[in-house]
């Protein structure tokens, strides 16, 4: 579970805070979507959760552990239980699918064995099992650069799963995919997290996706949370609160369907 208290973040070259006074409580196994237009702070908030971005102030507890004030080793230990998926996949393109998925096991190995390129039998077993779960067994030894976008995101999901996480953070995981693949990847991610009781926090551009795939929607605007409830409670006024008076939200909502 994730507990965020009075979180603020300001980028060095900006006047305004990207995240403003955000407090949030996400329970174990919840499926949460953070929505908002570009620059609303949803991505920054997500990246603070595993300290990829160090917040200016505030507190974050992951499974009751303070990740913000933890020392290096503890940050790595806490991070090992948080999988992360990115919009641009962020895989080592030149390496094989298996090699990329094995990277999810790094935190279970010491630096010395990594220096010699060693992974244990168990690591391989877990990697292969997760590749099977995302349907990529056939491509295990292929280079990532030869795969399609949808396949690449499956590799990234398998990498995250190999960490055996209890939280998965997904930063606009389907924004660089075409509509059919978007649905496939969102379904896959949702189903896996459900069956493994993994807390899923996804940032999304698309309102319809959030409504369909998540059990809770957090709307952000100018770094602040302006909506936090079940999808059914989302009114037209809330949508205007999140996306502004422009009809942009309509585009967000309809794209893909």
């Amino acid at each position: 579970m994730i507990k965020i208290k009075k979180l603020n973040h300001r980028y060095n070259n900006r006047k305004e805070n990207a995240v403003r006074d955000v407090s949030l409580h996400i329970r174990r196994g919840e499926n949460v979507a953070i929505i908002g237009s570009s620059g609303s702070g949803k991505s920054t908030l997500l990246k603070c959760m595993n300290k990829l971005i160090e917040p200016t102030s505030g507190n974050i507890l992951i499974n009751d552990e303070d990740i913000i004030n933890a020392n290096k080793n503890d940050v790595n230990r806490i991070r090992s239980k948080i999988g992360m998926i990115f919009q641009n996949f962020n895989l080592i393109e030149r390496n094989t699918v298996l090699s990329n998925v094995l990277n999810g096991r790094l935190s279970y190995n010491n630096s010395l064995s990594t220096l010699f390129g060693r992974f244990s039998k168990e690591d391989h077993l877990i990697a292969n099992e997760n590749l099977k779960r995302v349907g990529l067994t056939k491509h295990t030894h292929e280079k990532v650069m030869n795969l399609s976008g949808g396949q690449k995101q499956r590799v990234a999901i398998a990498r995250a799963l190999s960490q055996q996480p209890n939280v998965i953070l997904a930063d606009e995981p389907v924004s660089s995919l075409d509509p059919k693949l978007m649905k496939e990847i969102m379904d896959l991610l949702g189903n896996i997290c459900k069956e493994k009781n993994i807390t899923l926090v996804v940032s999304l551009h698309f309102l319809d996706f959030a409504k369909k795939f998540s059990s809770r929607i957090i709307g952000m605007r100018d770094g602040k949370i302006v909506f936090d409830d079940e999808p059914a409670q989302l009114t037209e006024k809330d949508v205007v609160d999140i996306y502004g008076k422009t009809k942009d939200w309509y585009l967000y909502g309809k794209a893909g369907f």
Partner: protein
Amino acid sequence: MNERNKPFFKRYKGIFIGIIVVVVYYWALTGTNTSATAFAEGIPNMIDFVQRMFPPDFSNLGMFLLKAVETLQMAIVGSTLGALIALPLSFLAARNINRNKITYHLVRTLFDICRGINELVWGLIFVSMVGLGPFPGVLALTTHVIGALGRYFSESIETVDSEVIKAIMSTGATKIQMIMRGIIPQVKPLFINYTLYYLENNFRAATVLGLVGAGGIGMELLTSMRLFRSHEVLTILIIMVVMVAAIDRISAYIRKRVVQVENI
């Protein structure tokens, strides 16, 4: 602001640049006593020199070839040893990896010193340290390569995709693991490319290291020249040209293959 001058300078920019080029060139030519007449007067001497070299004398070919092989060995050891030492150091000289300013500048300065001094000068220094032979030559090549490759390596490390690095860090990996699994795979083809390029360079540099007593075929060249054995000089020059051309081609072929793999 003098608005009138602007279009004036712009219009006659070509003439100004032309004048500057002529002045600089005249200055450099007179400073170096470069003159066409002196060159023309020297032509008969040159023809005489070349004539005296023919035909090449192959009686010592076996020994020269052995020395050529020694030159290649020097280049191989110098390049690989230099690359191996430069590899870990280059991470300290990459701004995105090493945030410690002291070690960063220390390693950068070390690279500058290694690179700034020519292999031949390093050869002189190491000959006076460890004596004549190929070993000081290897040390000279290694030292120069540490500086040159160290700089190239650290610059390639600075250009890696930082998002991929974040993805590796987000799994809870340590810094060493991030370097091994996130950075090395991204820069490997570049590193191989640069190292092979320096193997070519080093072979060329190694052929002259003998002039200062630091081993290789250059030593034979110096001896033959001092004993006025012009026919042997030609033999050695032929061996040098053939080997440099061969190594350049082989290395260029491998480098092309490495880059191609990268571009699939």
